[in-house]
């Protein structure tokens, strides 16, 4: 059983997935950020693989990606940083990024190295189902990695079913049609969240995009198995003198 499946087996509600960009704020802070997240109450770590042209991201995550690239982050560096991470990190780790750097690294080599480093799942928003089914899904499965698809309020019911069937780990419900970090009212999407609940999907559901504090986390967690926070945490890390303290303060503000 994968670490993600185990997590959802024992914790069905209020699961908190926190996104951070690998190599941000410092090139070598990745592991420290992961440790702090584990220490202070996150349930899943979503590590962003920085890319020069991140289509689905808003300015906060884009800027953190640029900073990480300037710091010298790359997939090779990331895998070397993760090499021994399982000695200290027990949380599920999901890598999130875009196809181009992965293709350049070599798709199969990427999956092999990710699995060897103890990564549990992948989110590649620009890898759609057709290409997943015809080319890449088999490779991902071969290395035992979960692959997480996104659904949005505009995704039809039939397509939600299709994506749920292709997904393992959890389904990523984008709260509204937007890039990351937009301030939108979750209440407006109640109908969509209810629909997801009533569909009795195969996978647990985490809601992401626009979740930034205790109120939005609790609201989202009320509609699904939990939620994903990204931009708000990146903001908290930005200019933080002490990663552990910044993380502790941030997670306390969300969870307590």
């Amino acid at each position, binding site marked *: 059983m994968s670490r993600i499946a185990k997590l959802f087996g024992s914790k069905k509600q209020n699961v908190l997935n926190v996104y951070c960009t690998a190599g941000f704020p410092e090139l070598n802070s990745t592991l420290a950020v992961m440790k702090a997240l584990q220490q202070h109450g996150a349930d899943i770590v979503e590590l962003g693989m920085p890319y020069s042209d991140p289509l*689905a991201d808003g300015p906060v995550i884009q800027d953190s990606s640029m900073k990480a*690239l300037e710091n010298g982050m790359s997939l090779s560096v990331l895998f070397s940083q993760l090499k021994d991470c399982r000695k200290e990190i027990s949380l599920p780790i999901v890598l999130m990024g875009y196809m181009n750097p992965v293709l350049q690294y070599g798709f199969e080599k990427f999956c092999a190295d990710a699995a060897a480093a103890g990564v549990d799942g992948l989110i590649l928003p620009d890898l759609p189902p057709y290409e997943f089914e015809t080319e890449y899904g088999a490779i991902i499965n071969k290395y035992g990695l979960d692959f997480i698809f996104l659904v*949005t309020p505009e995704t039809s019911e039939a397509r939600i079913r299709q994506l749920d069937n292709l997904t393992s780990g959890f389904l990523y419900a*984008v709260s509204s049609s937007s890039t990351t970090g937009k301030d939108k009212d979750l209440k407006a999407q109640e109908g969509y969240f209810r629909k997801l609940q009533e569909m009795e999907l195969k996978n647990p559901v985490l809601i992401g995009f626009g979740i930034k504090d205790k109120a939005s986390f609790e609201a989202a967690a009320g509609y699904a198995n939990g939620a994903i926070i990204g931009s708000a945490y990146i903001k908290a890390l930005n200019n933080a003198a002490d990663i552990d303290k910044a993380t502790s303060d941030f997670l306390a503000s969300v969870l307590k």
Partner: protein
Amino acid sequence: MEQTTYQRPDEHGYYGSFGGAYIPEMLHPNVEELKSRYLDIMYEENFQKEFHALLRDYVGRPTPLFLAERLSKQYNTAIYLKREDLNHTGAHKINNAIGQVLLAQRLGKKRIIAETGAGQHGVATATVCALKGIECIVYMGEKDIERQAPNVARMRMLGATVIPAVSGSKTLKDATNEAIRDWINNPTDTHYVIGSVVGPHPYPDMVARFQSVISEEIKAQLKVTTGKELPSHVIACVGGGSNAAGAFYHFLDEPSVQLVAVEAAGHGVNSGRSAATTQLGNPGVLHGSKSLVMQTADGQVVEPHSISAGLDYPGIGPMHAHLFKSGRGTFLSATDDDAVAAAFNLCKLEGIIPALESSHALAALNQMKLSGKETIVLCLSGRGDKDLATYMNKMDRI
């Protein structure tokens, strides 16, 4: 016409191994709506009627196919110029802008967004939106806004809102990213008018079809002038590749016609300041399709360089990537200096000031082995008014 691998992609948008629709789920409804409806709408009788009437009465088509006699004499062979520079707004971009805005109207969209590099596509889109009374937002790299001031002024005069793209390298690729992000944030009422044969399927196919009017006219005009429909060569510059796609389209399945695509070599292909994607790129995914992309070993997209903002793009349309890989197309490149020299040469010989983009196609003539028996058609994609500042700067040195 029969389906072929060169002219049309398969149902998933692939030209050989290039193409597809690598988009986040947030864009799926928009792209799916377009994919399921574009062909029906485009080939509907009323649409064709309105499209062709506007091309004729508003754009000024057909554009002439001009036998450039003194240029021909210089190269000792027959060279025809397809005068896309004589279109309203000064370039071929208007063909596609009209097509897509008419299509957007039929899809019920109220808001048009576009990206632009040199500003030609932005101006074309702003023009059609003004004509049709539709809101128009154009994303343009902050750096390009500085170097293409007259086009920025034109877009504003035409009522468009020009939004500077300040992320990344602040050029065309970033303007494209910003336009895509806008589309993600406005999924229902907005149509994104992509200006080249790039982007997720069906954009490369749709834009190629709108631009195919260029080769359709070339065939008919050549028949009248020479008695034969087929030239020996068609030459066009390639950034993303829309004028080349249009000029090649009806010759793709005519093996006797040599298709010559000319990329911008900037300071030289291996100078580190170039935009010659087929020479420098690797397969990758950029702006929604799999194609050739200039990138670092880590897969980060690199900033290209060309003296012409319209060719300053780190990718190439998937149709062209397939033409390159299969060998159906010949890909040459011309440096900034080659292009400027070719522009001055055309001014002197034919009294035509070409766009810097088109000058790259002209420069390629120097690299071709010509026997004297060719019938060459060169797509003069745009006029050089917008590039006057660059030309003036170079004029001091000649």
